């Protein structure tokens, strides 16, 4: 079957007008919005940082200076590696992993509970309550955490009033506010994939295991978790990617001494004014996240088709 035949079949099935519309819309989306911008960013990240008039001129050659900069630091620096940026990069990934695990631990019991209790008005209200925070602007959610964790925020004032502490605790600097805010922001993306899967789990399996005398933790370990694996891994993937790529929460809740990798990218684009370098850093973030997610999927034997269900 050759390509020409394929197109013929396609137009025969959809008619000329509809077929053209489908093809144009999909091609526009896939090629112009998804693929080409990524390729152009990749290309751009290998260019020198030049003023606009010199772009395309003789100086506009390929270079790996921006990637070199990320690993080795500015030429002539005291350290042989770019400790600052690499440190931030590593810390961002670790923190994103931490947030993911936190969310998983927090969400799994509720997802199980919701998934196993059949219908009922109370459950519906609970689901509604879950969704409402997700509709509130990301910035406003971060702002709420700042009110709570700020130096004169709710928790500090309460602890001061109760005499638990004598000086306000700087939750912002300790990144407590940041982790709480990030975990909060993506909690729904963890809960719904797991909930959807567990909902379809046959209850008889659990009852059978219980009848055979399995303790509750073994029921979870041997039946529920293996069954819910696609949901768990898709939730974890989304939370990890979104936390690692988060920008608003670190900007608002992050401590002054701890940057998020996206903030460095942001700085190269705005105050730093070095777009190719920002693009290079963004490529590094993208590739690393993809590698981590793919290897996690390989590890847990989950297909990409399971994501987004």
């Amino acid at each position: 079957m050759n390509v020409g035949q394929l197109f013929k079949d396609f137009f025969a099935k959809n008619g000329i007008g509809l077929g053209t519309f489908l093809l144009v819309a999909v091609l526009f989306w896939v090629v112009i919005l998804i693929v080409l911008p990524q390729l152009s960013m990749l290309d751009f990240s290998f260019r020198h940082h030049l003023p606009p008039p010199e772009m395309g001129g003789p100086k506009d050659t390929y270079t790996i200076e921006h990637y070199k900069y990320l690993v080795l630091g500015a030429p002539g620096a005291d350290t042989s590696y770019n400790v600052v940026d690499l440190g931030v990069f590593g810390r961002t990934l670790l923190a994103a992993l931490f947030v993911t695990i936190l969310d998983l631990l927090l969400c799994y019991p509720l997802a199980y509970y919701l998934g196993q209790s059949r219908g009922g008005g109370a459950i519906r209200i609970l689901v509604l309550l879950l969704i409402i925070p997700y509709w509130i602007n990301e910035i406003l959610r971060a702002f709420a955490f700042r009110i709570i964790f700020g130096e004169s925020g709710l928790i500090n004032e309460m602890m001061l009033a109760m005499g638990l502490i004598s000086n306000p605790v700087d939750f912002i600097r300790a990144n407590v506010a940041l982790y709480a805010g990030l975990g909060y922001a993506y909690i729904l993306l963890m809960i719904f994939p797991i909930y959807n899967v567990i909902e379809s789990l046959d209850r008889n399996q659990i009852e059978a295991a219980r009848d055979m005398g399995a303790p509750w933790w073994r029921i979870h370990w041997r039946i529920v978790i293996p069954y819910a694996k696609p949901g768990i891994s898709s939730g974890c993937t989304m939370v990890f990617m979104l936390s690692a790529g988060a920008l608003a929460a670190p900007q608002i809740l992050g401590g002054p001494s701890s940057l998020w990798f996206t903030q460095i990218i942001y700085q190269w684009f705005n105050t730093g004014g070095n777009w190719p370098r920002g693009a290079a850093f963004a490529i590094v973030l993208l590739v690393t996240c993809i590698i981590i997610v793919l290897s996690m999927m390989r590890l847990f034997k989950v297909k990409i088709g399971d994501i987004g269900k």
Partner: protein
Amino acid sequence: MKTNNILLKFILAAYLVVFFGYLLGPLVVMSITAFNSPSFPKLTPWECLTFEWFDVLAHDERILNGIENSLIIGIGTVILSVIMGLAGALMLTQIWPKLRATYYTIVIAPILIPGVVLGISTLVFWDRISIMLGMSSGGILHNGIFLTILGQSTFIASYCMLVFIARLQRFDTGLTEAALDLGATQVQAFRKILLPFMKPAIGSAAVLAFLASFENYNTTTFTFGKFPTLTIELAQKVRYGINPSISALAFIIIVLTILGALAHEIYRRRQQLALANGAPVAAVSGGFQLPKIFRGNPAAIILVLLTLGGASTLWFAQSYSPDVCKMDVREQKRLIQEERIKAIREKRQLELQQKQHQGPDVFGGSKSAAPATQSPGKGAFGNVFDPGNLDKSGPGAVKPQEPTKSPGKGAFGDVFAPQNLDKAAPKED
């Protein structure tokens, strides 16, 4: 066994409380701060009930402008991403099986790509295109609204596509085939069969797309150019100085969200009721039978209560003025301030007296030589150490007064001069 059950239930209840406390607590706290009068959003100390932050919000040009931009961008994004998402979902059902997995990976990838990367790639790509075409930097390819719509649609279309795929899985292709057999054209079959079937999905995809566009920050922050959306404005406000008018905005958004969610819930209940009774939706929702919807429908009851509460609050806000309370608070603050100043003065005085006591010790070395000078010396210093003096002028201004009056000057020279004292003290310790 039974105690075990009770314990389990207790743990479950505690867990639910903690979970939903974490989920809803921040929103509640933020909403309440919108009604407290301090200019930094705080829950404690509670000062005065006030509605002025809503007033401040209503007169904030930047916020209003941001809402306008957000609406324009939101509508553009909805149109573009619903069309692309629908086309993408239909394409998935027809694509060559070997390409299917690759195609699915590509169109689902934007959900997983960090928003920052999407924003950057959109910005870079269209910047290069515009350079290639030789367009000026003010052209449409640099227009913030254009770029933001494209950047957001890249991933929002994937969300829409997921919604459509879910719906399409229940579509019976036999229907379209039957229509074609009966002589309908392709377009007719699409318009009269498939589109009506997809209508609910199109509605929910549009709502989803609009919400996602409205609250997007990561992508927009690179592409907005001269057209900051509401989210961008909010972020800038939150980062560089905050006041409770943001809480007021949050409160409004939360209330709207709850109302929307409740309305949706009521609608679903009605539909279910209609299905259960075998009657069309209209029969259940008729005006005459309205009270019926309250039966077994807590959402409707909550909605009505909320509306009543909102109306009475509005009425109250019209007549209420926090000025008196504010004056009180100001007065209290002034008193506290005064007390603090007083306390600081007393503390200084105390410190001073201690210094005075230390004075003779510092001169310990010369004590034996001139015990008699101590009292005249003290007399001379008495003036200098006067707390009032120090309070006003600090140690620096004390110096010039001192030597002229000191009777001990002849014997000790400058030994007693305070500046000496300062220098000498550490050495003698």
